């Protein structure tokens, strides 16, 4: 069976099962590979890949504890340990690709299903390697970083009768998109789509349209792709990007929630969902996604410091709002492991002490919170460091939770002065102010508020309520929004009776008492709403009596 064309190829087998690993090594040797190495886990594999450039990596998807096959693939590709023409083949026990394998950025070149025999392996690798050899001029150009030459080589290949047509079309489309030749890319995808509605070509069309700033066209193509293949994760990812282009963070969150529901194992999607939900102050969603992202990060190159900090922040915010918080242990673990994971640089110490203070203050541990925040602030003073605005906001939230008005007010004034012309910092601080100061948030508040009022006037109370709830999450100290929300609730209650909701709205109204003193300009509206609520309560009582 040994063929000379395999003789100068180097292969790496990654499998944690001795039995499988040894058989695979034996098979590859029988097929004729010149060199076959093996690794028992992800770390071992990475070490070997750093020492030698392999032409083929044969990796089991399930590697037991530690990195999964997908994470090994990500590590290897992200650190550029394989050359352009090398093959990464994923071995799995299941036939058909389960959705867990719907990768974010990197996909293996092929999947093999167990059981594997020398014959099946030889046959599949023979096909793959023949294709690679046919496409060698393209890969050589890619290796040398010569994209125009690679594109030209693709065109030459496609004009012939090669059997790797499909791979070559995909590669050509991708290279054209990457070099922003959108019209040429479209031509490639259109010719594929003449044969059949294939999701990857539809996604390609969508990316090309996005590149040409045809937002609507891009969205439509992404939807087409989802129609032909409802689990096409690349199409979901593209929709997410498209919403982000428009700074429509709520739509981005919705799209991410749909994507994550289908593919919960992707750390990148969980991180992005966690971050955007945190930005939107939707803490239930943020906590869930960030907790998963932290877990998935244990073995991933994509793990990052902000995911961990935002998980603690979102948890603190959620804990403040509700009496039940299920993930306290996860938060404590994140705090405990933080320096070991990300290093004990001074800024990391400050960040983790601040996040810890915030969480303790939300959990009702005032002495612990005090000691942590003092320690964080002391470090910054001693080293005369200016921590990021996010960390300073953690301090503010912490003082707020501890009900330390003076410390809160003093720090807030100091920050407002310092950041008065820093739009990005102001965007972060707006949540703590009665009225937003950043241009983006001012505009956004005006728009969504207008939308809410529009719905209210059309008696679409639920839609109006949804707008005002989103606004209130972002600007919890804004009086006008709360009054609008109450008014929308009253509209809904007038139409349909709901005892529980009425109680909730009364409580919301009552909570404003301190913020709307008689001399404030909102006082008149506050009283009108109070009267409207009283009418609703009286009607209910009369109804009950009548029954």
């Amino acid at each position, binding site marked *: 069976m040994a063929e000379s064309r395999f003789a100068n190829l180097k292969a790496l087998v990654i499998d944690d*099962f001795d039995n499988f690993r040894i058989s695979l090594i034996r098979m590859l040797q029988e097929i004729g590979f010149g060199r076959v190495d093996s690794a028992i886990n992800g770390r071992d594999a990475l070490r070997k890949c750093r020492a030698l450039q392999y032409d083929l990596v044969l990796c089991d998807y399930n590697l037991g504890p530690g990195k999964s096959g997908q994470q090994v693939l990500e590590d290897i590709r992200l650190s550029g340990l394989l050359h352009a023409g090398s093959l990464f083949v994923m071995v799995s026990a299941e*036939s058909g690709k389960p959705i867990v394998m719907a990768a974010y950025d990197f996909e293996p070149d092929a999947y093999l299903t167990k059981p594997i*025999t020398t014959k099946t392996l*030889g046959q599949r690798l023979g096909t793959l390697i023949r294709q690679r050899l046919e496409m060698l001029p393209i890969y050589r150009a890619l290796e040398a970083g010569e994209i125009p030459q690679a594109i030209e080589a693709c065109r030459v290949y496609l004009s012939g009768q090669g059997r790797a047509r499909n791979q070559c079309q995909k590669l050509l489309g991708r290279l054209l998109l990457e070099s922003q030749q959108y019209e040429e890319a479209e031509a490639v995808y259109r010719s594929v789509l003449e*044969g059949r509605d294939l999701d990857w070509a539809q996604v390609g069309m969508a990316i090309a349209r996005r590149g040409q700033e045809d937002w609507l066209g891009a969205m439509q193509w992404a939807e087409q792709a989802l129609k032909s293949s409802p689990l096409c994760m690349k199409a979901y990812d593209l929709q997410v990007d498209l919403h982000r282009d428009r700074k429509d963070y709520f739509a981005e969150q919705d799209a991410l929630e749909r994507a994550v529901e289908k593919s919960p194992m992707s750390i990148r999607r969980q991180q992005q969902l966690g971050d955007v939900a945190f930005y939107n102050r939707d803490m239930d969603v943020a906590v869930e996604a960030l907790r998963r992202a932290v877990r998935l990060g244990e073995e991933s190159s994509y793990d990052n410091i902000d995911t961990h900090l935002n998980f603690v922040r979102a948890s603190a915010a959620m804990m403040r709002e509700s009496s039940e918080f299920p993930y306290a242990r996860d938060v404590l673990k994140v705090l405990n492991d933080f320096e070991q994971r990300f290093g004990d640089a001074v800024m990391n110490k400050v960040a983790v002490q601040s996040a810890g203070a915030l969480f303790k203050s939300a959990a009702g541990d005032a002495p612990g919170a005090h000691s942590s925040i003092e320690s964080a602030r002391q470090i910054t003073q001693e080293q005369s460091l200016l921590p990021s605005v996010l960390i300073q906001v953690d301090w503010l939230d912490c003082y707020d939770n501890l009900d330390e008005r003076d410390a809160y007010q003093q720090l807030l004034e100091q920050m407002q002065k310092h950041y008065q012309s820093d739009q990005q910092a102001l965007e972060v601080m707006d949540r703590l102010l009665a009225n937003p100061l950043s241009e983006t948030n001012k505009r956004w508040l005006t728009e969504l508020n207008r939308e809410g009022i529009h719905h209210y006037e059309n008696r679409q109370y639920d839609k109006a309520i949804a707008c005002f709830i989103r606004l209130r999450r972002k600007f919890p100290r804004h009086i006008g929004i709360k009054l609008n929300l109450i008014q929308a609730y009253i509209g809904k209650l007038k139409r349909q009776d709901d005892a529980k909701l009425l109680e909730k709205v009364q409580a919301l109204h009552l909570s404003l008492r301190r913020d709307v003193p008689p001399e404030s300009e909102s006082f008149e509206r506050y009283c009108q709403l109070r009267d409207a609520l009283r009418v609703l309560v009286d009607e209910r009582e009369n109804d009950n009596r009548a029954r």
Partner: protein
Amino acid sequence: MITVQDKPTLDFAFVLAASVHDMKNSIGMLLQTLENLSELSVPPPVAEEMGVLGYEAARINSELVQLLSLYRLQENTLLLQVDEHYVDDVLSEQVARNELMFRSRSIELTYTCDPQLLWYMDAELVGGVVNNLLVNAARYCRQQVALSASLHEGELQIVVADDGAGFPENMLAEPVETSASVSFATGSTYLGLYFAAQVARLHVNQSRAGHIYLRNGPPLGGGKAVLCLP
């Protein structure tokens, strides 16, 4: 205020799927070991017994694969990736996979497919269906099995035929889609055919969906299963 994480509720289908997955790993190991053994020179009676072991293990394996795939189908997490493939690449892989089984049972397998034939399908799933049809044919044939593929009226037809007694009358009558009935009397669950029908159905092109039908008679005089992909 701080509560410990809720105890997760037991989802039996999930537990079953996980355990099927585990069993499948064991079967894979068993098949691997058998292949290693078959490389050694053993006396013919032993080789025959090993053939039986290999065949039964392959059957369990393909049944488990189908169970898992059906579970994913039901959970809506079965990823269908239709792409353009050389039909020969997909089919000859299944021929190679079952070579040992056919050899050890002294069955003659004829395979016909134009190497240039291109068609649209999920190669993994269709490969799984063809594997199952081959294993099934090996069970019911006398000594011959034929696998072929060709285009008919805008459909790819993959045919697996044998020279056995053919399918029972009641199976020929009804469309395969509805025959997912478990019959303990005959010992057959028809799971394989049900799975094949589901995979075929997932392949849709311009409102035409794939399907599978059964016939008796030509080309080998026994049963014939035809998988049609638009």
